[in-house]
């Protein structure tokens, strides 16, 4: 049976949702174990076990929290030599991809990045990767040993399998030479009431919002629906809202119950990050916008009038 190592990313001492999604998929492909590094690693083993990890290798050295990529690369390279997994899975997230890239270069093997699925085939692994700006999907066979695949967040729904992981201390001595890119401070900009990635309703604004001064209309609607506000790359690049709100290929991937795209044309760069939402509602003045061709409900009209009216109607319904 194939052995699969999942890199469980910790953020603020907690396991990321993406890590659990990876475990959920990996347990169908072979024997799964995980590695968790940094503060909270030991406690994380419980939830990792519930999602299918049979063993969790842990090390709580603070260097994993405080230095970019290099200490984790040292730990993973050591673990690889011990365990020789057939497949190593990472989330395609900023922190994980840096470790994956360094590890692949150190092991001298390539990797498959930005995958939307991974499956076993003919004793090896095959990944599906958005291709051609997202219009197509390529099936890519992993040629290297180990196969290293980075999977986009929200590609699967995480579910528990009810297991318990054996916790093993991973012996790593982080060399001073790996303590270089030092995270000296963390600044929180987005006062996210509901996390964009976890929200059951996401309301995203694009150029059709007219300017940053109109984004509070979306905040109001999000408040009424208990949702979060996202944005297209165009308005992030224009400096209207912070990057943390960007949904799309180079931003966040979301799959909420309802996605409301307001004044967003629906460029592939954006839709690749939201097209697995259960229900998509688009509000746009252009009936020919690409977003209208993928929305369950497309409303052609003036977003600046419709959004406040919708907020009022939602509030009225909740109170009624």
């Amino acid at each position, binding site marked *: 049976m194939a052995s699969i190592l999942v890199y469980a990313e910790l953020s603020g001492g907690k396991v990321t949702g993406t890590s659990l999604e990876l475990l959920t998929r990996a347990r169908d492909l072979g024997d799964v174990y995980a590695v968790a590094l940094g503060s909270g690693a030991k406690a994380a083993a419980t939830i990792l076990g519930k999602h299918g990890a049979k063993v969790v290798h842990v090390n709580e050295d603070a260097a994993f929290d405080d230095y970019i*990529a290099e200490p984790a690369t040292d730990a993973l390279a050591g673990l690889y030599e011990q365990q020789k997994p057939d497949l190593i899975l990472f989330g395609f997230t900023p922190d994980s991809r840096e470790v994956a890239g360094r590890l692949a270069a150190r092991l001298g093997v390539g990797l498959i990045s930005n995958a939307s699925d991974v499956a076993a085939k003919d004793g090896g692994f095959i990944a599906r990767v958005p291709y051609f700006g997202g219009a197509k999907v390529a099936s890519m066979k992993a040629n290297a040993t180990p196969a290293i695949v980075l999977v986009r967040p929200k590609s699967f729904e995480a579910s528990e399998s009810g297991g318990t992981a054996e916790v093993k201390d991973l012996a790593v001595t982080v060399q001073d030479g790996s303590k270089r890119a030092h995270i000296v401070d963390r600044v929180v*900009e987005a006062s996210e009431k509901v996390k964009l990635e976890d929200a*059951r309703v996401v309301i995203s604004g694009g150029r059709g919002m007219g300017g940053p001064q109109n984004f509070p209309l979306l905040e109001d609607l999000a408040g009424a629906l208990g949702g979060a506000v996202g944005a297209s790359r165009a308005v992030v690049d224009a400096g209207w809202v912070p990057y943390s709100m960007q949904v799309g290929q180079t931003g966040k991937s979301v799959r909420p119950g309802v996605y409301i795209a307001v004044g967003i044309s629906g460029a592939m760069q954006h839709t690749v990050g939201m097209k697995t939402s259960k229900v998509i509602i688009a509000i746009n003045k252009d009936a020919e916008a690409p977003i209208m061709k993928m929305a369950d409900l497309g*409303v052609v009209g003036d977003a600046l*009038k419709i959004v406040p009216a919708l907020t009022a*109607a939602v509030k009225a319904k909740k109170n009624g």
Partner: protein
Amino acid sequence: MKIVVTVKQVPDPNSTLSLEADNSISREKEVVLDPGDECGVEEGLQLKEAHGGEVVLVSMGPERAKDAIRKGLSMGADRAVLVTDPALAGADALTTAKVLAAAIKQEQPDLVICATESYDGSTGMVPPMLAELLGFPQLTFAKKVEVDGSTLKVHRQTADGYQIVEAATPALVSVTAAIAEPRYASLKGIMAARSKEIKQVGLSDLGVEKGEPAESIEGVTDAESRKAGEVIEDDGRAVDRIVQVLASAKVI
């Protein structure tokens, strides 16, 4: 300080992409300097203007990639190195990183600037691989870079804000589009670029051998597309319809 900026020629984002018979993305169409790399060049130029030194562009691609490199030179970069070799067609991220690392080592830079990911490949893997192969620390997703002597300080974008990350040079920085608005090349810059050096080297000059690609494309299919649903003109009642849809999705 000596700054290397990695640059790549990509299909024009405003043109329609097409596939070759072997399922690789066609490079025969309109090509431009990767928009992300323009931001990298701009940041390199700003750091040079503030701290002195030299900006060298390093690229891998076919000979016609010189057009994209000229764009960077016309913005103000000093010179360029292009690694071009027929064997490199369709190279994967690791091979690309190996080639770039070999070319960059010859330059012995204090700082290497990359875009976070290319417009066409979007794997985002070359910067960390390159940092590893060069033996440099990586300061990634930077939206701001400050240099103080041999210390670098970057603002690294995160999901909910940014981190302040420090390291000593030599180091690799990957930058996001938020780092700097690329300047337009002036006429003077365009004229000057014509006489700037683009040193062309092959794989044998670098002593790099092309390995087996990490992946092979077995097939390409159309992405699952969602079907268009109901489209209505807002005649004043659209809000009621939206509320119905929200209710049936059980979010209100």
